[in-house]
């Protein structure tokens, strides 16, 4: 399942690499990334060889388990196992719905702190004398009866914050064991829907774990950093519209991002707490439970289960499915699900093919697709306006999801699956993308100076809601139109978009290309500057009959929706024209190389300049300006 620790090389003593980490802190799983010598980031495994570390802590006797080992305690020791605590950070007890799913230790009202959620677990205290008698560590009734040398069982009350601190501390410890150095700072993810109180609570819990929090970074921001660091993926431009699909365990989060040469902001977001890996598990648990009953004739009612035996069987299946789902994601073959003594002493081993798997899970894929449609229309856009899909979260590793979503997008949509970067821990791996983004962000932040007023201001701009995050952006695409004799398109020439709509200002774009100046000696360069109207045209086209197809009458005319992106001239702004000085003649035709710069200022003023770049150097700068409104 997980690769052994140490496949990412520990950075040797290179002072240029700060000892910082990125932590993706989900409600279900966490991951840790460190920086590599090459300037990239990689996820590391903890002592147990896990890269996806379950957000769970469990107490059993004198032992404290953290991570996947703790999760396994959910079967037999659920009352002393704590999960799902991230989402409770910063919440008052009264804000937590009473019917919140409790597969683990229930959330209780803290015995002393008003309106504070807490957990009560039973632990064995090694040395009964002297017993630390803080009020929350109320000694159990058995205390007096226990011989002094034996550990005694006591109730221990932990706040959500304390649980988080224990957990985060163990993550940092894993990182420090790996790096062989003290971690100087961390960037930690927060969901986009986290409120300030939740962020404050997380920061406090991290500080209590002796972690210097460099930034609490929104998950969308972490994804944007990862996907805009390094070379622009094949088939994409540095200016693009990116759909981030985050499918975790208990939630689906969608972000439509405008990515403009690495600068990112959200055009629309949406989250749904009914779609996720847990819902996928429910489908599969039912499927395997049915199979179990068919094989053994032992009745098994799950999702929901009411009988304690069934509940335990369901918990066992849920744990076993982690492996099944990972196998389905990793290889096209079939996957198994094995549980020892599932019920009434009967073992169970089921097999599922990817086809069958996707069939069972189809309703979840479909709901994701539906939500994606809602998101994109909320932004006033069409699926065809999306250039790239980025997957985040464990459940987004499933290839079936990409197959289901891709249907509605243009054929050339770029996804990590089309790029082949998901499997084998590639750059598109949805399970590591957030932690890696955080590590890269931590590197940026660790290198910021604090010496001057300006430097401190730059540093402060990374805090939540800072004024520098407020920006204006263009609302229409600005481009160059090179008129052409008898042009076939409606635009009447060659259109070169330069500054796309939704580009934060001030913005500058520089494009370079050759221009054909014809055979004459006039060698005139000229273009118009327009704002464009962009859209998506939907046409119903009758499908062409395949050759040799018979019974034309009987068959219904098949129609298919064909979509096409459209660009129309909307507002002429200005134009620019000059005689080329640096053209070269080849095969009787003149060409010159042009570098066109467009700058939109903070006020909306536009400046377009063109320079010829010849073998003998750069020509004169020809400039036109369009004043702000």
């Amino acid at each position, binding site marked *: 399942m997980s690769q052994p620790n140490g496949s990412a090389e520990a950075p040797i003593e290179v002072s240029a690499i700060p000892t910082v980490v990125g932590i993706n802190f989900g409600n279900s799983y966490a991951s840790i990334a460190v920086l590599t010598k090459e300037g990239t980031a990689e996820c590391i495994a903890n002592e147990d060889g896990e890269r996806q570390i379950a957000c769970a802590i469990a107490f059993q006797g004198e032992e404290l388990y953290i991570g996947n080992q703790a999760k396994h305690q959910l079967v037999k020791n659920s009352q002393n196992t704590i999960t799902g605590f991230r989402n409770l950070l910063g919440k008052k007890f009264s804000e937590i719905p009473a019917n919140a799913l409790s597969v683990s230790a229930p959330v209780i009202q803290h015995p002393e702190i008003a309106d504070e959620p807490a957990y009560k677990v039973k632990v064995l205290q090694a040395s009964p004398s002297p017993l630390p008698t803080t009020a929350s560590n109320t000694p159990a009734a058995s205390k007096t009866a226990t011989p002094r040398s034996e550990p005694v069982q006591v109730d221990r009350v932990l706040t959500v914050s304390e649980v988080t601190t224990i957990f985060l501390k163990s993550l940092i410890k894993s990182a420090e064991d790996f790096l062989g150095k003290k971690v100087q700072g961390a960037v930690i993810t927060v969901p986009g829907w986290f409120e300030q109180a939740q962020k404050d609570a997380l920061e406090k819990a991290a500080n209590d774990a002796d972690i210097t929090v460099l930034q609490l*970074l929104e998950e969308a*921001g972490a994804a944007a950093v990862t996907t805009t660091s390094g070379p622009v993926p094949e088939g994409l431009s540095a200016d693009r519209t990116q759909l981030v699909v985050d499918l975790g365990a208990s939630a689906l989060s969608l972000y439509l991002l405008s990515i403009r040469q690495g*600068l*990112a902001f959200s055009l629309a977001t949406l989250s749904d707490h009914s779609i996720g890996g847990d819902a996928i598990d429910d489908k599969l648990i039912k499927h395997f439970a049915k199979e179990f009953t068919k094989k053994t004739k032992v009745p098994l009612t799950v999702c929901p289960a009411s009988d304690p035996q069934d509940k335990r069987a369901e918990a066992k299946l849920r744990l076993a499915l982690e492996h099944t789902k990972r196998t389905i994601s990793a290889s096209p073959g079939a996957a198994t699900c094995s549980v020892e003594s599932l019920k009434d002493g009967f073992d169970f081993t089921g097999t599922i093919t990817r086809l069958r798997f996707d069939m069972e899970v189809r309703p979840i894929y479909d709901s994701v697709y539906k939500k994606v449609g809602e998101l994109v229309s909320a932004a006033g856009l069409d699926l065809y306006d999306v250039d790239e899909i980025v997957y985040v979260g464990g459940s987004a590793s499933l290839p079936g999801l990409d197959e289901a979503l891709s249907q509605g997008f243009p054929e050339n949509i770029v996804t990590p699956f089309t790029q082949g970067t998901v499997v084998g821990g590639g750059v598109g791996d949805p399970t590591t993308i957030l932690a890696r983004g955080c590590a890269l962000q931590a590197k940026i932040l660790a290198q910021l100076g604090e010496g001057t007023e300006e430097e401190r201001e730059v540093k402060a701009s990374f805090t939540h809601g800072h004024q*520098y995050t407020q920006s204006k952006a263009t609302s229409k695409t600005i481009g160059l139109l090179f008129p*052409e004799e008898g042009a076939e398109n409606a635009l009447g020439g060659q259109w070169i978009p330069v500054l796309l709509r939704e580009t934060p200002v001030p913005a500058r774009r520089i494009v370079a290309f050759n*221009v054909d100046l014809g055979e004459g000696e006039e060698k005139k360069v000229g273009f118009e500057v327009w704002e464009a109207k962009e859209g998506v045209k939907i046409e119903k086209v009758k499908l062409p009959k395949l050759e040799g197809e018979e019974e034309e009458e009987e068959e219904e005319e098949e129609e298919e929706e064909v979509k096409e992106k459209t660009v129309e001239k909307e507002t002429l702004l200005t134009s620019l024209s000059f005689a080329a000085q640096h053209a070269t003649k080849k095969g009787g035709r003149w060409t010159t190389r042009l570098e066109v710069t467009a700058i939109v200022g903070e006020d909306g003023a536009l400046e377009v300049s063109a320079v010829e770049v010849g073998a003998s150097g750069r020509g004169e700068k020809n400039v036109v300006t369009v004043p702000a409104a």
Partner: protein
Amino acid sequence: MANIVELSVVPPPLPQGWTPPAASGKSISPLVERKLLPAGQAYLAHVRRAVHKLTFEEHDK
């Protein structure tokens, strides 16, 4: 560093007798308010330019 985007398109020669249209006097469409994600090198560059009040050209250096 200025980022120059190489394009493969080659615009054709201008039509006979084309004269550049005069500036329309119109400005670009109204700008819209957006909230940037405070993340990545590009955001850092964006803020640095603003804080140090630099033009793109000055920032290139």
